[in-house]
């Protein structure tokens, strides 16, 4: 690659990127860092595919009568947007990229417990993705990303089976990644790395892995049943033969509500790393944050019924699910309060990762509080099926998970690539994304409150102003997402050399060169300190 811009030493040092060249050294690698990069490229591709569907939807909704497509096509747009963004971008995003890259480095290990299984996970993910892309090319799916029966089993005129198989297959990638993380965190920690010396990112990866391992198999069997039902009309979910369509919803949400926490818990872990680093302070309430991650993982399995308040589920079940859903607010709030307490009297610097972290706190709080509206039985009856729902989960999924993902990209990119990105552009992009995001989705809260239903290609004319605002915001958001793509690629060749620890951060991953050598550390590190010892830390390294 380029030798002119590097330090004299860096040009000769062997790291995981220049250890070997050629496509075989990438496609058959078992190095967790290279597999992380394979995932990074793949999920970025799916992010822009899913984003394209969103762009088409927002163009359609500029005019009340629709400016682009027929309703049948619109159904496919929002379905494919949801399926690709959730199963092929958000669920693998932070775990598969940053979890893969960082879990071994943060505990001082040479690799994950099962490196070949890790590579297999990526191939499984790609095979699932090919099934899904096949269905996109052949017209996509029009069932909504939830695949509700009997719509998906009896009435859909689209490619349900390939997509269900694609999601089914990709699920195993998620299961194996979770398994790998759990075993690695239990058995591969360096000497002195006790559970309570682990960075909080690892606690959140551990909690995420628990959900992946327990929840995903249930989704797998559910989609398997759905595919059989559609192929043979065997009656599992078909009321004509005695099947119960609501059973599908129960099974689906038993996975898919915890899946929300698969997406948000890793982002919370990222925020817990960034906030202390850019406040130069020990994190406030380490154990409270750690246990709140586990608490969210446990509670996540007990709240699925709040997606079914208006389906004919018994009112008593509704009451219990409502109360349990309110409980999830407690560990979430514990995290937010501890992050803000960490900021208090800190020496705060507003580098790009910190901007994303602060944005996350604000947007996640909005998303979380509006979630309480939806956990209440009476308000949910009013708001269910409106744009309020759409706005709520985009505040969590985009305002939360994607902001966390971008924060992680900016925080660990110097470690991954060995190069710095242009800070001014990065701050500008963070500001554009924040403004664009709010302009896109805040009007949707108002639209939902006023009663505009989701998933329609047309809408009454009085909603046009807010819809135009939302579409305008989406175009700003789109620009905000393209800028980092450009400067990250640019920085790989032209960025200044980062050095091992550009942020002066604690944590084992910063104590090894950037990019790290294939075995991560020259010697197995011995841990003697708690994480986030920013108060007594001298910046820079041994």
């Amino acid at each position, binding site marked *: 690659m380029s030798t002119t811009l590097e330090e004299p030493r860096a040009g000769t040092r062997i790291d995981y990127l220049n250890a070997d060249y050629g496509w075989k050294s990438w496609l058959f690698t078992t190095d967790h860092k290279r597999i992380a990069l394979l995932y990074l490229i793949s999920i970025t591709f799916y992010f822009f595919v899913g984003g394209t569907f969103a762009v088409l939807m927002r163009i359609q909704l500029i005019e009340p009568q629709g400016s682009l497509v027929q309703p049948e096509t619109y159904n496919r747009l929002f379905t494919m947007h949801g399926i690709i963004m959730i199963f092929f971008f958000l669920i693998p995003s932070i775990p598969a990229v940053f979890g893969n890259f960082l879990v071994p480095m943060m505990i001082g290990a040479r690799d994950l417990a099962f490196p070949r299984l890790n590579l297999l996970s990526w191939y499984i993910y790609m095979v699932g993705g090919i099934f899904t892309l096949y269905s996109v090319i052949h017209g996509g799916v029009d069932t909504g990303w939830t695949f509700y029966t009997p719509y998906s089993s009896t009435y859909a005129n689209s490619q349900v089976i390939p997509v269900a198989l694609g999601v089914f297959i990709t699920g195993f990638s998620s299961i194996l990644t979770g*398994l790998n993380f759990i075993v690695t965190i239990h058995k591969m920690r360096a000497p002195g790395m006790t559970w309570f010396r682990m960075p909080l990112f690892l606690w959140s990866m551990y909690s995420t892995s628990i959900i992946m391992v327990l929840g*995903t198999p249930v989704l797998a069997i559910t989609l398997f049943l759905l595919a059989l039902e559609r*192929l043979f009309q*065997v009656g599992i979910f078909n009321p004509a033969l*005695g099947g119960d369509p609501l059973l599908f919803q129960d099974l689906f949400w038993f996975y898919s509500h915890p899946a929300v926490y698969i997406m948000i818990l890793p982002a919370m872990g990222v925020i817990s790393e960034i906030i202390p680093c850019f406040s130069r302070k020990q994190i406030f309430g380490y154990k409270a944050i750690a246990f709140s991650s586990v608490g969210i993982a446990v509670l996540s399995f007990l709240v699925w019924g709040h997606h079914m308040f208006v389906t004919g589920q018994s009112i008593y079940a509704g009451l219990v699910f409502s109360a349990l859903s309110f409980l999830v607010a407690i560990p979430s709030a514990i995290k937010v309060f501890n992050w803000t307490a960490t900021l208090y009297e800190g020496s705060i610097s507003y580098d790009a990762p910190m901007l994303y972290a602060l944005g996350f706190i604000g947007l996640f709080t909005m998303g979380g509080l509006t979630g309480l509206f939806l956990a209440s039985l009476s308000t949910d009856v009013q708001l269910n099926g409106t744009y309020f729902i759409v706005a709520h989960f985009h505040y969590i999924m985009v305002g939360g998970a994607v902001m966390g993902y971008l924060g992680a990209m900016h925080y660990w990119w110097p470690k991954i690539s060995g190069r710095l990105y242009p800070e001014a552009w990065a701050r500008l992009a963070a500001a554009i994304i924040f403004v664009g995001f709010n302009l896109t989705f805040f009007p949707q809260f108002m639209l939902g409150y006023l009663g505009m239903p989701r998933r329609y290609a047309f809408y009454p004319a009085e909603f046009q102003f807010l819809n135009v605002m939302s579409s305008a915001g989406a175009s700003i958001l789109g620009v905000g997402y393209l800028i980092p793509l450009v400067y990250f690629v640019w920085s790989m060749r032209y960025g200044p050399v980062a050095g091992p620890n550009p942020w002066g951060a604690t944590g084992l991953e910063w104590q090894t060169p950037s990019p790290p050598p294939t075995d991560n550390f020259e010697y*197995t590190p011995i841990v003697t300190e708690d994480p986030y010892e920013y108060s007594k830390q001298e910046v820079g390294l041994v």
Partner: protein
Amino acid sequence: MSEVHTKTSILAHQFENLDQQLETDTLGIWVFLVTEIMFFGGLFACYTVYRSFYLPAFEATSRVLNVRLGALNTMVLLSSSFTMAMAVRSAQTAKRNALMAFLALTMVLGVVFLGVKAIEYHAEYMEHIIPGVDFAPQGEILQHLSPGGLGHAQIFMCFYFLMTGVHAIHMIIGLGLLLTLLLRARRGTFTSQYFAPVEVTGLYWHFVDIVWIFLFPLLYLIGGRY
């Protein structure tokens, strides 16, 4: 120390020593079995819901199944768990010939199980009780069911084929794993220091066995014939 050096090809690069590797492999298979429990758990949950909805039809349809062959298969599978446990023991005590013999015996019992299962499937095909594809039961057991009851019978048969079918797929995967173990054992890969693959495969095999222990009463015995 020379013994340690001969083991380096067995010790994967990410581990410090063979003990850590064995512990890691064992925890890995246990976590995997947890995912398997959740996978089968989804099926069992659906079965339980429908059984509570349609108990009479489920009981009647259960009588269509061949309980003698089911019982035979239960015995075959339990015996295979015994031979598998003996194989693990032989690996731990570095008895290579015994290890190979017990692995081969386990495979034979596994193949017998699948053969008996195939005979059952064939009989059910001849009786036209394949849900969705060809469901027109001729026998007198299901004759008295109403049209609605026949729909419920179809759901029962659907779960029968799904659960035993997914179980059979696990058996086939298990046989593949046993075959690779057998080939590796013949090459003398396993020692009293290094037997993790045998132990891990053993845990998997016992799990598949236990699933059958639940399937047999839930599918074959709920008819109350005996």
